[in-house]
């Protein structure tokens, strides 16, 4: 499937620069954070009410603040200091920011991984068939692609959310079910409709790339040979065209993954999230208290930047090693 030339290119470019290594390390750290969130978290991320005894949320180190309190009929200023109990402080409703940071990584990664998979499952077969057969099917796909591209991805996603709603699907958390993390939420909310929506706004890129590949492969000698033996078309598509188109599709997938993470965060920020555990949602709640509790908006944003940077670094590595010119790879949310 992946040729030796590609493998050696990947190795060479990985050794040449620091950036792919950095991307890989970052992504592994984030994957571990997300996978073992219930074990690594110090508090139930959904539990509210962790406030300082003087009323305000706990700040992280360096963000101590003063607040006015009335005690014994007098009004006075009270210093609110950070605590080791809450590493990154607590938010406006008194939830532990560090634990929510870990769980937010889950939402971001689950939506983007499922989203990319779904988008390629829709786009790749469509594109391969269109490119392989050409003619009317191909014309139809290209016109449909033109229409899809006239919608900004985020705007189309917003319109689709209006139709699908944004109810999350709850699945049992395997780590909690195994009894490894007592006291943590027993189920994970997966924003199912958000995942469908991001796939519906990105599949067209997979279709376009797959179509281009199929178009250039269909006239190769080995395809003609297979045809002359009477091999069925679906078999040729599956055994020859698909494996030979895979490299650019993988590059595209990394780049679209970064874009999907940004779209998910934007939807959540605008209030169309499937779950309050999303980093984008957390930033939205932090906006109202930006002036007094800046860490609430700061922390989840750093999470988004780190995930997207790591995915982009890997995407750049793949692209440098595999194919410098892939359509749709310079496109954002």
């Amino acid at each position, binding site marked *: 499937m992946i040729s030796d030339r590609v493998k050696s290119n990947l190795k060479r470019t990985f050794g040449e620069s620091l950036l792919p290594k950095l991307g890989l390390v970052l992504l592994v750290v984030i994957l571990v954070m997300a996978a073992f969130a219930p074990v690594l978290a110090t508090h139930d991320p959904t539990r509210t009410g962790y406030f300082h005894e003087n009323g305000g949320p706990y700040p992280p180190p360096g963000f101590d*603040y003063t607040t006015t309190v009335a005690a014994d009929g007098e009004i006075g200023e009270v210093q609110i200091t950070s605590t080791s109990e809450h590493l990154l402080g607590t938010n406006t409703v008194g939830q532990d920011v560090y634990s929510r940071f870990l769980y937010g990584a889950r939402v971001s990664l689950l939506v983007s991984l499922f989203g990319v998979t779904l988008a390629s499952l829709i786009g790749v077969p469509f594109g391969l068939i269109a490119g392989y057969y050409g003619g009317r099917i191909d014309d139809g796909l290209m*016109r*449909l692609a*033109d*229409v899809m*591209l*006239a*919608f*900004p*991805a*985020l*705007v189309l996603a*917003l*319109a*689709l959310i*209006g*139709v699908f*709603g944004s109810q999350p699907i709850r699945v049992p958390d395997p780590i909690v079910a195994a009894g490894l993390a007592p006291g943590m939420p027993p189920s994970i909310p997966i924003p199912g409709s958000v995942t469908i929506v991001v796939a519906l706004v990105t599949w067209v890129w997979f279709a376009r790339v797959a179509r281009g590949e199929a178009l250039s492969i269909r006239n190769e000698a080995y395809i003609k040979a297979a045809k002359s033996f009477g091999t069925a078309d679906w078999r040729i598509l599956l055994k020859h065209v698909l494996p030979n188109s895979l490299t650019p599709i993988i590059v595209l997938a990394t780049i679209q993954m*970064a874009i999907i993470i*940004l779209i998910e*965060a*934007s939807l959540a*920020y*605008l*209030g*169309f999230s499937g779950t309050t555990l999303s980093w*984008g949602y957390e*930033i939205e709640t*932090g*906006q109202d208290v*930006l*002036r*007094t509790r*800046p860490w609430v*908006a*700061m922390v989840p*944003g750093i999470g*988004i*930047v780190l995930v*997207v*940077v790591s995915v*982009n*670094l890997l995407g750049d590595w793949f692209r440098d090693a595999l194919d*410098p010119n892939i359509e749709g790879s*310079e*496109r*954002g*949310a």
Partner: protein
Amino acid sequence: MSMAKFLLRRTLQGVFVIWGVVTVLFGLRAVSPGDPATLMLGQGATQELIEQVREAEGLNEPIHVQYGDYLGDLIVGDLGYSWQSEREVELMVIERIPATIELAVAATVIALLIAVPLGVVSATRRGSPSDYSATLFSLLGISTPNFWLGLMLILLVGVWYGIPYPTITPGSSFPVGIGLIDLPTGRRGAGFGEAVMALLRDGSVDQLGLWVKHITLPAITLGTYFTALITRLTRSGMIDELGKPYVTATEAKGLPGVLVRYKHVLRNTMIPIVTVLGLQMGTLMGGAVITETVFNWPGIGLRLISALGVRDWPLMQGIILFIAIMFVVINIVVDALYTYLDPQVTIE
């Protein structure tokens, strides 16, 4: 093929795309949950009243008749009435267009002014500290969600001028900073047009100054992604071009390197950048929706979000349709520009 023929063909294709967009929007509205008449009248409406509205709005007709009516109305430029405010959608869109265009243009100008020189320096001094910083900047730029960037800028500007963060309010027109360089974190001062009129009429720069102050933070927020993207494109494009034989040949002939770099190499690099800019218009508009929300900027994006919140479909459709038309028109212009920038490209 002549230019006129080319433009005609592209326009026809554009009309087809717009028809597709209209059809998708109609389909979405048709399958979306909630009865339009109830949404229009609010929860307390009587069954009788709802039935009257359904009849009057043609909601009892079969779906293909409704589609036909909708297309017919659009062709004569009738986008209908907002369900929420009962105002004409055309007016509600048009009054918000200048703010969004100002923001988009300002962001693009900032992006081009910073990105092209940065990309050129980065490409001509590969491996230097300035190349590394440009690469790092562009990596962060394409990886940062712009709504978060906007909030962090609001914080940063306050800290920069020694203002303790408790005095900053996002989305308000209350300025951050002091004296000449105070930057409001929200709303729009005078429109650019009004500001220029004031300058011409009274020779007063106050309005223009106010406009600049208000647009600075939103434009940087929206423009950062594009600055990063264009820096990357300029850098990789320049590196490709600099390796071509004609560069060595012209330099060997004794043409100054600076002249070669800026006159020939940069020009050839700009061709793909212009194309990408056209295709990125959608991203720019998506970014504008978010940026306008952060900064309370009164453009079509802010209006789209409020329309979405109350499922005001006619208004949503009007705004999205406008964005799609803009995308199509700009890409036709880009294609025409392409032939101008690169004489080797023949129109087919």
